[in-house]
């Protein structure tokens, strides 16, 4: 009996918050998750917070990253279940209003390439595609590859998109589709990584692979030109390739010491280099 009481008390004490919160929670975009994780690994090499800033306690540095889509990133801030939200799209006004004391930090830019498998039928014809053709493919007006051009195979065009919680889908809808709806019969990948995998493993697919992931998988996916513009870093920055989206960390309220330290690292040269190494465009 005594043992049970002691045990329970210990359990409760474990829960009764330490004054200092030594972990930072990130939730949201699956595109940003590897970036944050890598930055976190670099920060964790210091082992404890006091090695970075002397007046902080000697507690382990812990960073917790969860994916779930940009939608979850916004929701986690609204409901207070995370310290930072990782978002790979613009945050709408109504969403900003729901977050107390909204703060936004831009880590870089990502673009949506229109990619196909290296053995895709379309590559025998051209490596360029127009908005018009994209709208027809994604809306279902063109169902087979030979609808696009009669010289191609009569095989179904497998369209791969992100699902509703993906930041990518909202960007694509707004910039490319406009008012037209994407057809129901698409494969909704739960993450950008899964979307890329689908394109890699199936030669009749087409989908909007993120610029970063396309770079990481050079040779396994082939990005097409859109309206004649090649998706390169320069074209994305100068705006001629305009299917792009920002990579943001969003927060609510004032940042704690630990959070500020992380943010400083993320926006420093080392942090920007990590962003760039994963294939994205760093900085503002």
């Amino acid at each position, binding site marked *: 009996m005594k043992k049970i009481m002691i045990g329970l008390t210990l*359990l409760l004490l*474990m*829960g009764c*918050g330490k004054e200092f919160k030594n*972990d930072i*929670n990130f939730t949201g975009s*699956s595109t940003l*998750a590897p970036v944050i*994780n890598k930055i*976190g690994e670099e920060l964790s090499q210091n082992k404890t917070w006091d090695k970075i800033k002397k007046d902080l306690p000697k507690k*382990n540095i*812990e*960073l*917790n*990253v*969860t*994916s779930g889509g940009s939608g979850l990133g916004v929701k986690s801030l609204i*409901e*207070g*279940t*995370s310290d930072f939200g990782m978002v790979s799209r613009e945050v709408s006004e109504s969403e900003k209003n729901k977050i107390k004391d909204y703060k936004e930090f831009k880590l870089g830019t990502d673009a949506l390439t229109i990619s196909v498998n290296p053995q895709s039928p379309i590559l025998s014809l051209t490596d360029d595609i127009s908005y018009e053709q994209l709208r027809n493919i994604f809306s279902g007006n063109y169902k087979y590859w030979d609808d696009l051009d009669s010289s191609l195979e009569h095989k179904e065009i497998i369209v791969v998109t992100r699902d509703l919680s993906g930041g990518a889908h909202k960007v694509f809808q707004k910039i490319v589709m406009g008012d037209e709806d994407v057809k129901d019969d698409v494969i909704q990948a*739960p*993450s950008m*990584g*899964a*979307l*890329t*995998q*689908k394109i890699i493993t199936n030669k009749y697919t087409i989908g909007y692979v993120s610029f970063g992931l396309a770079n990481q998988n050079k040779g396994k996916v082939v990005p097409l030109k859109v309206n004649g513009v090649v998706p390169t870093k320069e074209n994305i920055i100068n705006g001629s390739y305009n299917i792009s989206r920002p990579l943001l960390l969003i927060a609510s309220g004032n940042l704690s010491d630990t959070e500020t330290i992380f943010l400083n690292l993320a926006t420093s040269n080392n942090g920007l280099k990590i962003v760039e190494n994963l294939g994205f465009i760093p900085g503002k």
Partner: protein
Amino acid sequence: MEKIIKNLSYFSLILLIIIVSILFIYPFYRADFILDNKIFSAMIGTFEIGIFSMIFGGILAISTAIYNVFYCKKRKKVLSAIIRCSAGIPSILLGLFGYHFFVIKMSLGRCMLSSSLTLGIMIFPYIEIELERCFDEVSKDLIDMSESLGVSKEYMLVKLIFPVCRVEILNILTLASGFAMGATAPIILTGAIMYGRTGGLMKPFMALPYHIYILTSEGISVEGAFTASSILLVMVLLLNLGAKKIFNFIINFQKNSRMSKVK
């Protein structure tokens, strides 16, 4: 006609044996067995989840089962019906409830505690039903005899029921915690994370089933997912098969050492 039935039966049996072999062997075949920090973190997380959900679900279920069998005159059918219905609730809906109740309303945040409480609720019906079965099997004679001797119910519980059912209770609890360790849907919303270290009770944690799901759905590494699957399979199967034997061994060991002390 006769031949058909005989052949179909043998064929189905062989088919099922092949299926089971594939289920148990394929993950090991495709795994790459690269053990990094993440897998270890996930293993610790899964282990802790098993323990804590067993504690929470176990306490509730044992109390309810004892109440239902020994204190309840009419064997309330309402309680039994509710319990059986809650056994059928899909795990994702329990996860939703856990998120809204423990994470948001009780402000526990996404942590091991929220997840273990949710999983405790998930395994509670199973433990309760099996415990009732176990208590029912305790000989009626023993119970009647103790009542006629005038001992209190509580004394009977501690000195009579508990020693007899000890092994069975531990076995049921272990099986249930094996079930909790394999559950994914409830922990997605209540505390599982993709990368991070598994800390204490109030921190979020990594867990093997969630790790498998993430590795597959994010397209990161199917081989890694199979590695995690192999480890999880070993953990859960050991619990399922080995629990009874281990407990019998421990209890017999204690009995033998007690007897030698008496001498």
